[in-house]
């Protein structure tokens, strides 16, 4: 398996069926403790260039799922493949290579507060650089230029040399997006990117993600709480409840009432999925 991971030539021979899906989960289970299930046999495939929104209550497994796709957590059981590579047992070095191609946007931005905005964007490029960087000037000029271009793209080039923690929440999230974009990702994961933002900033950030995913033909997997926004923004809706997939359809065929049911405490019977009350 490791040979497949390391050789791009072999990757080209992967069947086209596999190529269609950039991210695939097969029966993924995550057990945090004997009684707490994070994911309960989740299977889902994500097509290239499509925007998928994950809906579900807090604790339903949205974040856990995204963190598994990024390899930040490992499954107890099941298979995960990302960009043609199996990652559930991949070594740290192999994971690093895949993570370079997968951008991640966090709810709380996760910027280094006292660092300048520009340097924060540059940290997105660390995966392709050797060794640590103690200051902005230690990044190659080409990386700094790229970072500036990404900042321009999210409309914050004029803030490049400001401390990241002097920006508003919405601005910080746009820096977070620039940091993900500098990786030139093929897949963009976003874990409730607007949950900490006011409505106006939320709309800006969602518009930005939408625009960029179209421009770059990115595969986007994004968890959200706003049902309306989700329906309007995505190609597909994936509903999670207690770590199980309870809804998986094109957004056009999902009505608001149906989407809201994902949030109902009482499990809604859905074809093919027998529901159990929330575990843990």
């Amino acid at each position, binding site marked *: 398996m490791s040979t497949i991971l390391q050789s791009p030539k072999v990757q080209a021979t992967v069947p086209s069926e596999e190529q269609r899906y950039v991210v695939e989960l097969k029966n993924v289970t995550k057990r945090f403790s004997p009684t707490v299930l994070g994911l309960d046999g989740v299977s889902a495939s994500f097509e290239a260039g499509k925007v998928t929104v994950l809906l579900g209550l807090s604790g339903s497994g949205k974040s856990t799922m995204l963190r598994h796709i990024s390899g930040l957590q490992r499954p107890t059981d099941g298979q995960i493949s990302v960009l043609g590579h199996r990652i559930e047992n991949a070594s740290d070095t192999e994971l690093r290579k895949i*993570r370079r191609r997968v951008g991640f946007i966090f709810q709380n931005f996760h910027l280094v507060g006292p660092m*300048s905005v520009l*340097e924060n964007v540059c940290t997105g490029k*660390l995966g392709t650089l050797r060794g640590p*960087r103690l200051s902005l000037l230690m990044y190659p000029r080409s990386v700094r230029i790229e970072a500036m271009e990404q900042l321009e793209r999210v409309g914050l080039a004029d803030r490049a040399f*400001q401390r990241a923690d*002097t920006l508003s929440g919405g601005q910080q999230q746009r820096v977070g997006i620039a940091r993900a974009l500098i990786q030139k990702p093929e897949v963009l994961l976003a874990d409730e990117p607007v949950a900490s933002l006011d409505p106006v900033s939320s709309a800006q950030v969602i518009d930005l993600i939408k625009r960029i995913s179209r421009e770059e033909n990115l595969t986007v997997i994004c968890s959200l709480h706003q049902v309306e926004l989700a329906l309007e923004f995505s190609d597909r809706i994936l509903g999670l409840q207690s770590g199980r997939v309870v809804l998986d359809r094109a957004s056009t065929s999902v009505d608001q009432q149906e989407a809201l049911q994902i949030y109902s405490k009482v499990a809604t019977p859905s074809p093919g999925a027998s529901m159990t009350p929330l575990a843990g």
Partner: protein
Amino acid sequence: MSTIISIPRPDVAPERFLPRKPLPRANSVAVAATLFLLLCAAVWSTVELRINLATIADSISNATNFVARMFPLDFPPPGELAALIFETLAIVVLATLLAVIISIPVSLLAAWNTTSGKFGRGGARVVIVLARAVPDLILAIVFLRIFGLGALPGILAMGLHSVGMIGKLYADAVEELDNGPQEAIRAAGGGRVQQIVSGIVVPLMPQIIATALHRFDINLRISVILGYVGIGGIGLAIATALRSLNYQRGMALALVVLLLCIAVELVSGTIRAALLGGDRSRSRNRRVSWAERVSESWVCRGSKGNGAKEGFGAAAGPVTPPWTADRVRRFLSVTAVLAIVFLSVIGAEFSWEALGYGLANAPATLGAFIPPAGGDILPVLLSEMLVTVQIALAATLLGSIVAIPIGIFAARNVVTNRPVQTVFRLLIVFIRGLPELIVAIIFVVITGLGGVAGALALAIGAIGLLSKLVADSLEETDVRVQQAVQAHGASPIQVFFAATVRQSAPAFVAHIMYLLDSNIRAATLLGIVGAGGIGFLLLNASRVMQFDVVTTIVILVLIVVLTVEALSLWIRKAVH
């Protein structure tokens, strides 16, 4: 099921459901008993050491005699004095730098969120505890034996001992840090070292520098003590002068040390306050001091907002930070630090040759330290160790008796009279500025050799430390409780005891235990100037090259220090 059955029916025995006063937990009883025993031991120690008014009255003639012999102060020629100060500062700078360089990796291993595993964490914690427990004086004796005279033994001794404090504080800071940024870098494919440098070291830079400056203050005081075993600088000059009973020179140099300590504390205190007190709000329309600017520019590359330019063309725009005033200041600060380190290397006459030679012969040299001496010397050592403990206990008791009222009068929310409160705050700052060793020397001259001098010197030091802690914890109390008690018609004294003291009593106990812990460590050292306790035997053993005795003393000191530390930790945890 069984729980349901075991519940008695209310109609059978209603009185069983009346709330009963819960029995105190075994742990609380044990803590209270231990505290009581410690208090008894402290009173006994004070009596045993003959610390009483009669002893002090007896010493008054000595004191006048001493003062007479002290004047006129005899300062060395300016050039010589400058060289002494330079040498001392050089050793302290390099020792602190060494400690920081060692502490960063050690603390990253010791913190749960950055450690490499259980063994790495355990190992790093052991290194930190041991570095703190072994007195720097003992390290200095060992390193002097290995590397010979010069700055190197002093740098190594203070550098390694400081890891105990710096490493602990760094590890705490790392554990408190939000690990989000670290995870973001990990999600982008960054490696472990990259995550730690960009996600932890860079954001912690203000704390890293502030802690180092704090330790620099402490090391400056310690360097004077190390002069007694032969580490160069002002300490050595004081030791030489006092050994030949040249009080005029010795006290002149002591005054220089006092002024130096106060000057360094003022500068580093200002920089530290700016580094740690900083938050985002300070950048907004507020006059910022020079030190604040320096500090924030350590971490922020460039301007804070005023560098914003409209219509910034990305590809064409500059990608290096503009040379704003902040960047210039940062550049100058870094240059100044590098220059100081460079000068220190020259000033300490650092010799790689001595280092290599010493290391090559270290195994043979260290052979002299084992096996530890035992047999007939052990009873003598044990009795002096007991005196050491007595000194620490008596000093803690006396210090607390004086310090608590001073602390109370210095608390803003207890004393409404502003001038009174300010006077007491200033008094605390002044007492804190006095290096313990200098105080000990003065007491040795006044009260004669022995435990009284040590206990009184430590008590003075304790006043400086404890009164500040007391004042701070009183000021941290919830004022609404005081207002509530006042609203019921209580007098100011009643408010003080019912609301204020009640709230801060656990903190007082914790501070006193911390004080005992640090007094035990200090008491092992003060003997070298003749202030009683095991330090005197330590100095003698190293002079006559009985290194096996030094080892036995190290073991005894370690046992006592670690026991008191464990006791103090347990009680502090229990009362909180």
